[in-house]
């Protein structure tokens, strides 16, 4: 008897050690999985940030600009025709030639002028229109450098040496002179946050795409949230349980897993070809993304309605509430935090989507910042895609910077979802 008891304990003790070991291993696997995930995220972030942080800086060159009426060919600032035709880039040319008087030869002069961004003329035009008294006077200005100069100047400290592929030795000499005189500097790149897209990297900004995303998401939210919640409430609270509702449920779950490009094709066929909504506008983008996010919102709303305990409904009916009152006064307010969380996650998904927008023409080059729902626009992820595809080297850092902006928005939205849930959630 005692013998067998001893042997039992021995067996248990032996197996105990084994079970402890197994548990430790099991935990280690979990820890490894998390470490691996974190490592990947860290790698991704370091890569993006190390590539992209320079895009927030911009090289500029200090010049004395004289608003010479003869160079501009302007006699009357109120004459729109004259201002439109005026050669503002000529002011930059003149100023640079005054700075480097020993540059002769056609090609050399052209090289010299292209130190400064080709958009500088438009900036000067806008300045002159805003301050007419500048005509005939001189001011000292910091003007954006051309993207080739910007790339070269930023890469000067690199271990592999600066990128000189598109910057001739002569231009390097001029930059050296400017540097010694303190007339070239790296400053905050305001253009990146205030301008629309451009084919000149130094004039390209994210603001147009951000506004496009905003308009698109407003449409998506204002359509998909009410429709999604109404569908969820009906299915959960009023619909009879039969074959038809089962079929609808299967279909909704199915739609949530359909590749998003399909919604783009659907949008092209229905909204553009049938209803003749114009291509490339936030309205049509919002409609397509509504189709895409609806299943997500319906599913999460149904889950949060289900989580409201039946006792609350029964109590409300018990004191004489009508079914509609039960829903509006009790179920919806209690389910709202969960629904909002679902909606925000759906919106975050819609914000990062490019594939369905390909079909409806929102993958496009759009310079003007959209001012409404029916003006052509593009969205943040599409902007990233377009920049990643551009040949100019300076767009590589712009791409990473745009990814950072998009990630910041996504983190903000997801944090909001977590905070809302923590704040408003009730447990029973």
């Amino acid at each position, binding site marked *: 008897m005692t013998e067998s008891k001893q042997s039992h304990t021995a067996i248990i003790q032996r197996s105990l050690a084994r079970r402890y070991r197994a548990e430790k291993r099991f935990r280690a696997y979990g820890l490894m999985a998390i470490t691996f995930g974190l490592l990947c995220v860290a790698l991704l972030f370091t890569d993006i940030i190390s590539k992209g942080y320079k895009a927030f800086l911009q090289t500029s060159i200090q010049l004395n600009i004289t608003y010479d009426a003869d160079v501009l060919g302007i006699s009357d600032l109120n004459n729109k025709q004259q201002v*439109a035709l005026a050669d503002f880039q000529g002011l930059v040319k003149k100023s640079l030639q005054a700075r480097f008087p020993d540059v002769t030869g056609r090609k050399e002069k*052209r090289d010299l002028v*292209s130190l400064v961004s*080709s*958009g500088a003329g*438009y900036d000067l035009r806008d300045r002159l229109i805003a301050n007419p008294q500048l005509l005939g006077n001189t001011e000292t200005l910091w003007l954006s450098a051309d993207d080739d100069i910007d790339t070269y100047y930023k890469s000067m400290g690199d271990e592999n040496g600066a*990128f*000189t*592929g*598109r910057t001739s030795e002569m231009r390097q000499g001029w930059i050296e002179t400017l540097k010694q005189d303190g007339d070239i500097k790296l400053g905050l790149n305001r253009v990146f946050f205030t301008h629309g897209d*451009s*084919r*000149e990297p130094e004039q390209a900004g994210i603001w147009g795409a951000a506004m496009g995303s905003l308009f698109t998401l407003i449409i998506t939210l204002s359509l998909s949230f009410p429709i999604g919640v109404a569908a969820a409430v009906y299915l959960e609270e009023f619909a009879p349980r039969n074959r038809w509702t089962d079929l609808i449920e299967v279909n909704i779950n199915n739609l949530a897993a359909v590749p998003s490009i399909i919604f783009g094709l659907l949008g092209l066929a229905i909204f553009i070809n*049938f*209803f*003749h*909504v*114009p*291509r*490339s506008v936030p309205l049509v983008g919002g409609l397509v993304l509504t189709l895409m996010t609806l299943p997500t919102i319906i599913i999460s709303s149904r889950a949060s309605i289900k989580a409201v305990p039946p006792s609350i409904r029964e109590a409300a009916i018990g004191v004489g509430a009508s079914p509609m009152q039960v829903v509006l006064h009790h179920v919806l307010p209690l389910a709202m935090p969960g629904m909002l969380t679902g909606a925000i996650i759906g919106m975050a998904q819609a914000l990062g989507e490019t594939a369905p927008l390909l079909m409806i*023409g929102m*993958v*496009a*080059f*759009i*310079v*003007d910042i959209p001012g409404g729902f*029916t003006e*052509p626009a593009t969205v943040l992820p599409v902007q990233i895609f*377009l920049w*990643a*595809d*551009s*040949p*100019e*080297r300076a767009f*590589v850092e712009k791409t990473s910077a745009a990814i950072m902006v998009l990630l910041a928005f996504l983190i903000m939205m997801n944090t909001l979802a977590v905070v809302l849930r923590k704040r408003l959630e009730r447990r029973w």
Partner: protein
Amino acid sequence: MKNTHKLAIAGAAMALSMASTTVFAAARDYISIVGSSTVYPFSTVVAERFGKSTGNPTPKVESTGTGGGMKLFCSGVGSENPDITNASRQMKKSEFEMCQENGVKDIIEVQVGFDGIVVANSKESPLMKLTRKDLYLALAAKVPGADGKLIDNPYKTWKEVNPTLPATKIEVLGPPPTSGTRDAFAELAMEGGAKKFADLAALRGSTDEAEIKSLMAKLGIPAGAFNAKGKKVFQAVAQAIREDGPYIEAGENDNLIIQKLEANHDAMGIFGFSFLDQNSDKVQGSIIEGIAPEFDTIADKSYSVSRPLFFYVKKAHIGVIPGIDGFLAEFTSEKAWGGDGYLAEKGMIPMPAALRTEVGANVLNQKPMTADGLH
């Protein structure tokens, strides 16, 4: 009761669709451009400058690929259809006919310049001196074997293709079949290489049924591939790129190909000249037929793998959509497409001055194109 309800709903739906049609069919005030991803970087620059300097809304430019752009462009006249389509090859006869059928009658063809296609590798590796024949032998699905019959491509290294080349593995990253760059590469480099074989060249030139059949038998091409035009049979053989590994489809993103070339020094990549120009510290363009891909060699056409770039304008839209004539004037101005113009700065190879004058005059007179000379 029920019926009236249904009627009311149907009526509302119809009213809604009609209302939306009338609202959205209202005039568009910006130019809409679609088409080739190769012309896109140049078209966008002009669009942006045009918008900034004239105060008109900046034209909207979509990159849909040449074929996709033609489809949209030829789907009809009216503000819901694009005004201009970009193309990295000339409009096909079938596309012209599709346009005509859908009421797009007068089309103005504008050739804007050239683009070179380069075969490049990492700067760490030796510079390659290739011929079009080497490229054909290295990349074609079927090549002439020892007995003159076509066999599955047996070559694994560049040295097997041509003894003067290094003994590295053939590994070429290039665009997928949807890309205009791929079409142009197949036409210019692969066909150019295949022509160097006497039988294939004879097949290309032949329109005689008996001759084509005997050549096909000699080359071992199955009789099912017969076409009354020997050129079609030739193209099917010459343009087929091998699918057994050495040619790797790397997607439409040329920056990605450059990154991969940096990582893998043995690999070669196929992409447009402007990407070589922007990354000359990382990659080098192989010399093809003794000529290096440079701005000047592409401009004077001595570099063999180069192609013309076009865009097409709907004449019916000029004067209806504001700014099209202004956009055309900007694109065909010397400061844009000229030898020292800003498009050259962006990597487009300008046309010779005489051709520029000719095309410019056609644009100014809005001379519509005809089906003559289209393929």
